[in-house]
């Protein structure tokens, strides 16, 4: 056990493995953080783009006319269906809704799940704790920096203003993506990097093991030959063909053995 601990192979392998782990660890730390941040950014951009597209398609004058209790009217149903259609086009979108200012707060107007059996809010339901991003959406497209709570779950959301025919902002459209979907996207990057690093460490370990194994095998051969000669047995053959330092050592060793044989042979002949 002590011999194994002090062998060059153990030292080499341990040294390389520590080096590889250090490099990959640092790479992982820097790459995962930056990559997940980028994924979140691109998801946010995607939500803002979809919110802006949806807002451009909506008729602001029609939405402004919707009052509590009008959920069964054709005006509501048509707009709700339009939103449902948009949200169903992307299976990662959990809900598209419209909201407007009501007093000091905000209220929901249309819920994309209304006529497809996934209704969560009615016209006039208050938006609990409107976020700064929702408020700033009345001046231009905006996005949540982090996950927010809705009646339908935890989401990441993008918003865009809805305008009427006169160009006045009458409300906002919100596009919600399930937090789990966003988290999965970010986790996927981390897991992929983990997998690549694991495979990298595995390959490096294998290469190091093979490399040090052949090197140690040749050193052992030289040690064995030296031991034989030191006991008077010159009948040794060294079959090491390498172009590195060990190969050079083996060549010098061969020359030394040859000289020893010549001298021993001469002495024998003299006798």
């Amino acid at each position, binding site marked *: 056990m002590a011999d194994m601990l002090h062998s060059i192979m153990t030292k080499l392998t341990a040294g390389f493995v520590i080096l590889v782990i250090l490099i990959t660890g640092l790479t992982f730390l820097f790459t995962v953080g930056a990559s997940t941040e980028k994924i979140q950014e691109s998801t946010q951009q995607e939500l803002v783009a979809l919110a802006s597209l949806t807002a451009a398609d909506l008729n602001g004058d029609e939405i402004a006319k919707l009052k509590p209790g009008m959920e069964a009217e054709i005006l509501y149903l048509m707009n709700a269906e339009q939103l449902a259609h948009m949200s169903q086009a992307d299976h990662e979108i959990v809900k598209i809704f419209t909201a407007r200012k009501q007093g000091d707060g905000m209220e929901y107007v249309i819920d994309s799940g209304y006529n497809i059996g996934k209704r969560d809010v009615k016209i006039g339901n208050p938006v609990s704790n409107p976020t700064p991003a929702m408020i700033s959406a009345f001046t231009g497209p905006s996005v949540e920096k982090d996950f927010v709570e809705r009646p339908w779950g935890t989401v990441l959301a993008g918003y865009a203003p809805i305008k009427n025919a006169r160009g006045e902002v009458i409300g906002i459209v919100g596009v919600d993506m399930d937090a789990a979907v966003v988290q999965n996207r970010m986790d996927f990057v981390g897991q992929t990097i983990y997998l690549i690093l694991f495979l990298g460490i595995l390959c490096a370990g294998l290469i190091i093991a093979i490399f040090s194994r052949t090197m140690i095998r040749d050193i052992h051969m030289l040690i064995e030959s030296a031991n034989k000669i030191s006991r008077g047995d010159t009948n040794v053959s060294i079959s090491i063909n390498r172009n590195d330092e060990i190969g050079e050592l083996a060549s010098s060793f*061969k*020359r*030394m*053995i*040859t*000289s*020893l*044989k*010549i*001298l021993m*042979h*001469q002495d024998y002949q003299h006798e």
Partner: protein
Amino acid sequence: MSKTSDAVLEIAVEYLGPAAITLLERQTKFHLQGLNFPDIGPEHCKELAKWVGLASAMFIEQDLAQELADKIGKLG
């Protein structure tokens, strides 16, 4: 030492190590009419190469012994 013996020794040491001189002196003495190794000239190289090839094959691989003999032979 003549230029030729120096050149032969330089080549032989690469294959036979420090005892190369011993082998070369012996082969010169026995096969080149008692000539001393330091006195050999280019005209002796072909004959010496033949005997060095045979003698060194007892201590190193056959192909290496032949390679050594060829190199010495080319000095002639």
